[in-house]
């Protein structure tokens, strides 16, 4: 058995009894190895210091102080029972929101309808006679003719004004 294995057995021996065979091998190694004997002494001292000689009691009125603190916090927070259902309610609300959102996305949308000329004029608050008037008001005959040609082209292309 080498020192590394001896140390592993040594450390395990502080927690649980080794198998008789393992114990014998460890003993044999320790007898011939001053370094591992020293490690054994050191580990035993350290572990001895770690195990407390005594553990004090909690400070007086532990339960009373604790329950008072809980009551105080309970007043600020919703009652436990309410809390239990509150988080379920939140989850339910979120699920409904998500379903609603998904529903909206999946519903086929109505195609945007082209407005009729009359609706366009009405919505844009325009008087159709203003344009005609402006054409007729032109002083020069060639200007009047050019504008009438452009206006008729516009209408033939179905273009918007």
């Amino acid at each position, binding site marked *: 058995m080498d020192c590394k294995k001896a140390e592993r057995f040594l450390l395990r021996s502080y927690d649980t009894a080794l198998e008789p065979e393992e114990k014998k091998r460890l003993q044999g190694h320790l007898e011939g190895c001053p370094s591992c004997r020293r490690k054994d002494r*050191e580990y035993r001292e*350290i572990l001895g210091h770690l195990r407390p000689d*005594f553990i004090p009691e909690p*400070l007086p009125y*532990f339960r009373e102080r604790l*329950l008072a603190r809980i009551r105080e*916090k309970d007043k600020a927070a919703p009652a*436990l*029972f309410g809390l239990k259902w509150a988080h379920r309610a939140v989850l339910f609300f979120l699920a409904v929101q998500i379903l609603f959102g998904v529903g909206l996305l999946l519903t086929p949308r109505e195609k945007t309808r082209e407005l009729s000329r009359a609706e366009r004029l009405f919505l844009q608050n325009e008087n159709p006679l203003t344009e005609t008037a402006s054409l007729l008001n032109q002083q020069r005959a060639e200007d009047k003719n050019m504008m009438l040609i452009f206006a008729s082209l516009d209408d033939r292309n179905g273009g918007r004004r």
Partner: protein
Amino acid sequence: MDERELIRRSQQGDGEAFGVLIERFKGKVFSLAYGFTQDRTAADDLAQEVFIKAYFSLPRFKARSEFGTWLYRIAVNHAKDFLRKNRSRQKDISIDEIGENRLAAGEKSQEDLRSVEERRATVLAAVERLPEKYRVVLTLRDIEGMSYEDIARILDLSPGTVDSRLHRARQKLRQRLTTSLNRQGGDDGL
């Protein structure tokens, strides 16, 4: 009253039932907190915080794990927070107080005790400086005396990992202590 019934009632906000659970578990939770803090007032405060956290987390407690294990898990997590916040805190170890108790029992001379307490303080200070994962497992095993299986359940590790981590923790502790304890001398010739 049966523990399950106490938990069920506590989950519905029954303070009396939770009071019974406090009485049943306060010793263990306080001892665990003391193992980490080595200070009575700090341990008391830590133990109170653990129970408060447990009370308000009870609606999420499932009976799949044991209540004790669940509670100690909360305690360890709180202790870790405490250790992170108090990393540089120096402990006040009352050598005289402990010494008088032992003297009354007629064990050792005042001087011997002072030396023992100094060495103990050195060991505990070295534990404080261990990396957190080693410190936690060492505290649960070597200060609290918990079994490997309980530690594994609380820390959610396999017993094999607990074993190797504890092995490593003890090795590190010994390496760090060898020099300082040798300097202090002592009966055991460390």
